[in-house]
């Protein structure tokens, strides 16, 4: 499964969203993901992928697509990709 699909799967579970609602380009707040639930979601993303993202990274994440790019970069940096 590719990175984006794993992220979407986690998001579906965490936020009880339908697959159709998960547009990689949609702003996270339009999916009903507020700042608090976003932080909790990032915690789970870090666990899922075994990566660590800085506060600075988090600020740049506005969509699931942004998240995929940051995770991919973190995986590459960690030599896992």
């Amino acid at each position: 499964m590719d990175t984006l699909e794993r992220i979407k799967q986690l998001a579906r579970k965490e936020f009880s969203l339908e697959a159709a609602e998960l547009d990689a380009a949609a702003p996270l707040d339009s999916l009903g993901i507020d700042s608090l639930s976003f932080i909790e979601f990032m915690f789970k993303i870090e666990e899922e992928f075994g990566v660590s993202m800085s506060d600075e990274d988090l600020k740049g994440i506005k969509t699931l697509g942004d998240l995929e790019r940051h995770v991919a970069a973190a995986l590459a940096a960690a030599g896992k990709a």
Partner: protein
Amino acid sequence: MAARRVAVTGAGVVSPLGATLEEFHRALCDARPGIRRLPDELAQPSGVQVGAPVDWNPLPLFKEAEAANLDRATQFALAAAGQAVAASGLEIASERGGVYWGTGLGGAHTLEAAYKQVYGAREWRLRPLTVPMVMSNAAGSNVAVRHGLRGPFANFATACSSSAMALGEAMRVIQAGRADAMIAGGSEALLTPGTLAAWQALRTLAPADAANAAASCKPFDKRRQGLVLGEGAAAFVLEDESRARARGAPILALLTGYGNSCDAVHLSRPDRDGQIRAMREALAESALAPEAIGYINAHGTATAVGDVVEAEAINAVFGGVAARVPVSSTKSLHGHLLGGAGALEFAAALLPLLHGWLPPTAFLEQPDPACRLRHVPLRAERADAPRAVMSNSFAFGGSNVVLVAERA
């Protein structure tokens, strides 16, 4: 302008005796116990043998992911408040509605899981929702969010009187015209190994009754050995009476008296005078003579000292009438809900008003002569159409809260 009176227009219950008001009342009428042996994973590390857990499955009320983000105490709160709002037909998502809630410990399960991870597994990476799940106002705040209640909010943490105080203070808010309706109640969920161990250290919990674990809590009985911890929640919709009548709301009772005192003598030893002051204040506010009280739900925790002091206090307040006022401790069936106790027992006290039954003190076979009261032993009794009822909540810390409710 006449003072605004406060109607109870909805009630919700999540308890060891069932997860609706109706189930709870039926279990009290049947004297069906909710106390049982605790599972090994709780009993072995803590040494606590019995408790009164709620049979709880958060699904389908909550989605799986949602339940994972709400402490058990908050899940109970949302469930009970949802029932109360549905029963009352209340529609008040505005600043004219508020939430006053009570809890002793807050998110005990979440806190203990975090400590276990940190000190047990030495894993310091905690989930970000730990703080908003643990904080003691989480339950009430989630209720406010769920129902869009943007008016007065408070969370009371006065141990065993917390939720009774939430009810009394919510009544004040409506009387003062600061809100038209309030959700008030309390919740507690602390049957965790660590919390149980802390309670066990106090040497105030009853061991399992050798013959019948369900009968381990025996308030007012010579054989009593202490309290049994329970969990759950109860919630009420309190509403300005004239508003409630105008919208044709069901009116379960009127909340007309609230007494609040502090012993200010000792953190854990109960004080007769403090209890007397609270009962007298509640009676005075309701403008009822003692003989108008047709049932008292006692605090009655089944500790050696507590039951005697409460019996003395009731006798002092009710004088010659005390011999005729039925008194019971329903903790014999549902255990002690601590921060949720006052609210759940207020729900128990509504049983005589709503259905004409007096809930019993179960297992009261050998009344202690030092607890000279007109008991309702063993089984529920028909009530003689009581006009009013009283519910006592006396807490560690010396906080005493007494509520008086009248037939609508």
